Each structure stands twice: as C-alpha cells, then as structure tokens.
C-alpha cells in the first residue's frame, strides 16, 4: 500500500504540473488548449531526435523545453488570434475547437511519420529506498524536478512583479488594465510558460515510463481532469488535485484495473463540478 501511495505521489506531482500549465492559460485568458498534450509529445520528440543525433541528454532536454515554449508562442501568434477577438463562452468554445484541430493535425503527422517512436530517459543507478520502499531512481529524479519547478512557480507568482501581474489578470482583468498591465502580453507569456511545463512533464515522465507518439490525447485528458478538480486558475489547486488524483489512480489501477482507474478519475472530475463548481482552490466560479 505504501508503495502504491508513493507511486501515486510520483504520478500526482506530474499530473499537478501538467494541470498548472493548462489551468493558468484558462484562468488568464479563457482559452482551453486541447492541443496541450500534443505540445508535450512534440517536445518529447524533439528531445528524442536530438539524442538520436548525438546531442547530450541534458542539452536535448533543454531543447525540448525551448520547443515547448515555442509551441506556446506559435499558438498565441497564429491559431489563437481569432479567439482573442471573442469574449466569454464563445471564446472558450472557439479556443477548444481550434486547438482540437491543431491536436488532430499534430497527432496525424506524428503517427504518420514516426508511429513507433517513444522517449525514454534512462536514469542510471539502482533503486533508492524511501519509507522502506525501493523506488526507481527515475521516479525520484522526476519527482524532485517537478517539486523544484512547483517551488519556482510559487515563488514567481508570489514575489516577482511579473508573477503578481499575471495573478492580477486572473483575479480581475479590468483592474489589471487600470494599473497598466496588458492582459494580452501576460497571456502570451503564460502560453510560453505552459508549453515549457508541458515539455518538462513529458521529459520527466519519460524517466518513469516511455512517452510514445500516441500519448498526446491521454496527457490532455489527464490535465483537464486535474484542472477541473483543482480549480481553474489555481496553481496550488493543481498541485493538490494532482497528488490526490495520482494516488487514487495508482491505487485504483492496482486494486481494480488500469481502465477502471481512468473512469474513476473522470468520475472525480464530474463529482467535483457537481459539488464544488469552482474546484478545490478555484479562483473563479
């Protein structure tokens, strides 16, 4: 049981970071990016091809992060342009449709050209014992990187002027404009950050299990579920919901079965919407 819970936390931290990237973009700009998982997979493929070409792993990971950020920037500069002209529900719907189109295109291309590719970052060395449970070194590394990233995110949003400016747009866009903050620039920044986070999750995930070309849809769905449970626009909510759902997912998969665990996660998201529409720590209703 302890082993399951530890594995759940490993998965949950990645769920949380994944959701943080999705929830910030939604909370900030009313944009639901369904191409999120494809951004992660694209970044993973960049790392894979770089390593195949002989680039050292550390550099390949950096390239993947840059690729993820660039993917966010490209979305902002192209597909999302018409979305920015709309407001409210129409905006959410158009962003959802257009990004889904991007997701299909990227998925189609990757499956056509590289159907068998998968990224695995081997972390050498034997298992590390935690609470008496031998944990794979890759899991420990992935979790440590994820936790450090969360710490950096919290510090950024709490102490950096730019981070506060981003929060101000999430809390009251008109108030933000009145103090001289341009919401469109903050959204562009967060889309780049979100792409970088997607890339980081793909890369750290590959230290635990192989991230293959088909992973995009399931990454997006996981991020969406955790976002709904954690609350839109809340990084802390994403972390909390990620850990809870990670544990639930691993325990359910072990006790019942993998497929059922996904249904349980969807049920958790649906239940959250019914009981607490704003999510655990949501900023907006």
């Amino acid at each position, binding site marked *: 049981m302890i082993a399951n819970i530890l594995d759940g936390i490993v998965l949950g931290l990645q769920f949380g970071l994944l959701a943080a990237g999705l929830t910030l973009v939604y909370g900030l700009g009313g944009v639901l990016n369904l191409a999120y998982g494809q951004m992660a997979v694209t970044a993973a493929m960049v790392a894979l091809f770089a390593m195949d070409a002989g680039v050292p792993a550390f550099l390949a990971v950096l390239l993947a992060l840059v690729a993820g950020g660039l993917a966010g920037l490209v979305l902002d500069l192209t597909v999302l342009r018409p979305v920015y002209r709309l407001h409210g529900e129409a905006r959410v719907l158009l962003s959802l449709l257009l990004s889904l189109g991007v997701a299909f295109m990227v998925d189609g291309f990757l499956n056509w050209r590289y159907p068998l590719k998968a990224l695995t970052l081997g972390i050498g060395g034997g298992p590390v014992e935690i609470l008496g449970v031998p944990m794979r070194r890759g899991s420990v590394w992935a979790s440590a990187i994820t936790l450090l990233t969360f710490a950096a995110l919290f510090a950024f949003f709490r102490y950096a*002027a730019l981070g*506060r*400016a981003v*929060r*101000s747009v999430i*809390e*009251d866009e*008109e*108030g*933000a*404009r*009145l*103090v*001289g*903050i*341009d*919401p469109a620039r903050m959204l562009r920044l967060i889309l780049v950050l979100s792409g970088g986070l997607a890339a980081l999750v793909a890369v750290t995930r590959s230290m635990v299990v192989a991230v293959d070309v088909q992973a995009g849809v399931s990454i997006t769905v996981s991020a969406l579920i955790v976002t709904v449970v954690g609350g839109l626009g809340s990084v802390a909510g994403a972390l909390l919901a990620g850990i809870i759902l990670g544990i639930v997912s691993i325990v359910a998969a072990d006790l019942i079965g993998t497929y059922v665990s996904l249904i349980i996660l969807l049920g958790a998201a649906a239940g959250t919407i019914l009981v607490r529409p704003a999510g655990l720590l949501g*900023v907006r209703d």
Partner: protein
Amino acid sequence: MLEVRGLTAGYEGGDVVHDVAFHVDRGEAVMIIGSNGAGKTTLFRSLIGLLTPSSGTVRFEGHDIAGLPAQRIVRLGVSFVPAERHLFPRMTVHENLALGSYPDRPDPDTMKRVMDLFPRLSERRRQRAGTMSGGEQQMLAMGRALMAKPRLIVLDEPTTGLAPKLAGEAYQALGELRDRGLTILVAEQQVPLAMALSDRGYVLENGAIRMEGTSAQLASDPDVQRAYLGVV
C-alpha cells in the same frame, strides 16, 4: 490638461453619451454630476480607454488618447478609480498597492504618503482586499490609483455603497489631494459632497452636458437645487 471634444460613445445597443465636450485645467477639481443612468460611467470608461469612443477627441497634456487602451493611458499619467473598484480580492492590501505602480517597483515615498492618507490601509496591509469593508476597499482603490503617481485622477462615484460617514472620509482624502495640487475629475450622484470639493462642474443628463459653471453658480441654480440638492 484634459480636453474632451465631441465625444460620442456607447455599447452595441447604441450610443449612450452624445457629443460631450468639457475640459479640466491643471490643479483643478472638476465634477460631473448627474442622476443614475445619465451616462457618467460610459463617459468615463470611454475617456480612460475601457471603451472605444465612436467619435470625438480626448487630449491629455497634448497627447490624443481617444481610443488608446486603458493600460496605455494609465502610463501617461491618468489613473482611474471605477465605481466597482476592481481590486484584486485574493491579494493583500500591500500587494494591491504594489501593483498600482506596475511595472516599476513601488516607490517607498509614494507608499508612505498613501499610508499616511489612509492610515487604515497601513493597519491592514496583510489583509486580503476581498475581506475588507466597502469603505476600506474604496480607500484601497484610491490608494492603488495614487501609486501610479498620476497627474490626473479620475473617480467614478467614489461614494458608491458607502455609509455617509465613510463617504465623507473619502471626500476628505480627495480634498487633501486637491490641496497638494493633484488634478481631480469626479463623477458623483451625491452632489453636495462633490460640490464642496470641486472648483467647477458639469451637469450630465441623458448622455449630454446640459449645464456648466463654477460650483457656486451650479449651487445657486434652481434646477440644480431641485434635481440634485434636495431643495424643494
């Protein structure tokens, strides 16, 4: 300092203010009075860039600012305090104030002057804005606007939702700012308070300026007395 000419603005359903012209000179306090629905909020929103005017010019210190977005206009030296305040409810008083000077770091002198003007903000600097009373939120909204070191401060009905005592305190603070030389433009329904503050004023009715004059002239006008000062 501020010169508005032929300003027409509104929403999708049609224009709300028509061909409005007025001006504010440096160091003046000017009021725009009018009843609920007269168009004061629409006029101010189009003035400070939250709403794009359909036509007209707005000049501030020689710049044509009509149609610029609000985030640009505030950097030129015009701060706006909306009636709904638009604070950041989950942030502390101090964080709200610090954001007022974005993108610069909050200037300690300005911060101190704001805290001196509103001592209650100083006592509650770690409290979340959303948990404060209406009067405190109004003070915070004014303080946040001052942190940008504006040369013109524009306030839309600063007494909205405030008890008479707190409304009086808000205007007392505005009086101090005026005495220090800050230029003030205020829209108000509670006309006696605005009149005591202002040098001049305009009466807005059905989206158009119907009357203008010094505060003394307006106060002695029988129509103004009947409509806004409760004189029978």
